[in-house]
């Protein structure tokens, strides 16, 4: 087992391994996505309070979960980068940042599209939406810093520090925003009308969440492969690749 992880840390091995794994993850994601969409849009019953508009939940909530999950992955990668200088961890963190920002953006946009019919306005300074907005800023800051530093290994280590600073701050930001919100907003609108959610509504939610997870794993591996290729373009193993060496 340890040997496997050790091998995974070497770029050529990881490049091949990720290339074989990504299509399978993609297929699983596609299956989950099709079932989840059908279940969520057709099978799940109409909400008695919000009507059909509640179906946005199947995008909104999984996207919000992913926005936090990807940050956690980046934080683990940051630790691996800072302590053991694992190259693959640098690459995965780099590849994750745009995906995390995308899911955060998605959570915000769908939240706004859901808010318009429910609250009557496109944007409410709701606690959870606001802390999601700050999370988006954190992601964009990480991406901006990575792009600004010329040397990519230095860039990866700089963003690792920033990611870890963010990890300490995210809970503080989250709870301070929630606290600020209850102070200014009064009781917030609870999104899930009933306290216990109907299982027929819950199953598509979990399916969509899993589909998003597999999507992330597949795409992050693909993005990581491209990143590895760019960083290692002058090494012998890249020159030996059949796509480079020619038939």
């Amino acid at each position, binding site marked *: 087992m340890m040997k496997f992880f050790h091998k995974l840390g070497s770029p050529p091995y990881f490049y091949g391994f990720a290339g074989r794994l990504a299509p399978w993850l993609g297929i699983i994601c596609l299956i989950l996505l099709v079932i989840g*969409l059908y279940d969520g*849009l*057709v099978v799940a019953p*109409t909400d008695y309070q919000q*009507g*059909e*508009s509640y*179906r*946005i939940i199947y*995008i*909104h909530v999984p*996207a919000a979960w992913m926005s936090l999950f990807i940050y956690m992955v980046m934080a683990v990668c940051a630790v691996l980068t800072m302590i053991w200088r694992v190259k693959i961890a640098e690459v995965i963190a780099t*590849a994750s940042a*745009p*995906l995390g920002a*995308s899911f955060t*953006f*998605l959570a915000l*946009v*769908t939240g706004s*599209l*859901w808010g*318009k*019919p429910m609250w009557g306005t496109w944007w409410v300074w709701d606690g959870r939406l606001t802390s999601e907005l700050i999370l988006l800023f954190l992601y964009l800051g990480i991406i901006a810093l990575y792009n600004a530093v010329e040397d990519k290994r230095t860039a990866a280590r700089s963003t690792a520090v920033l990611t870890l600073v963010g990890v300490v701050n995210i809970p503080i930001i989250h709870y301070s925003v929630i606290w600020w919100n209850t102070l200014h907003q009064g009781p917030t609108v609870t999104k899930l009308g009933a306290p216990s959610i109907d299982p027929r509504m819950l199953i598509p939610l979990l399916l969509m969440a899993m589909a998003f997870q597999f*999507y992330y794993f597949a*795409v992050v591996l*693909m*993005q990581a*492969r*491209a990143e590895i*290729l*760019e960083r290692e*373009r002058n090494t012998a193993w*890249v*020159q030996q*690749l059949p*796509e*480079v*060496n*020619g038939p």
Partner: protein
Amino acid sequence: MKEFLYMGGYAFYVWTSYGIAMAVLIINLVLPIGRRRRLLADIARKARRARRSS
């Protein structure tokens, strides 16, 4: 079918949400594929040039 697309009057909000979600997912999927293809082509071109000149 018409009723399904109508979404109880919330069609615009629901379908825009799903549409944007799919667009974001597809863009993020296409970007690494294109990036890897361009990189490989570029590396291969440079390698050929290096072989020819040596």
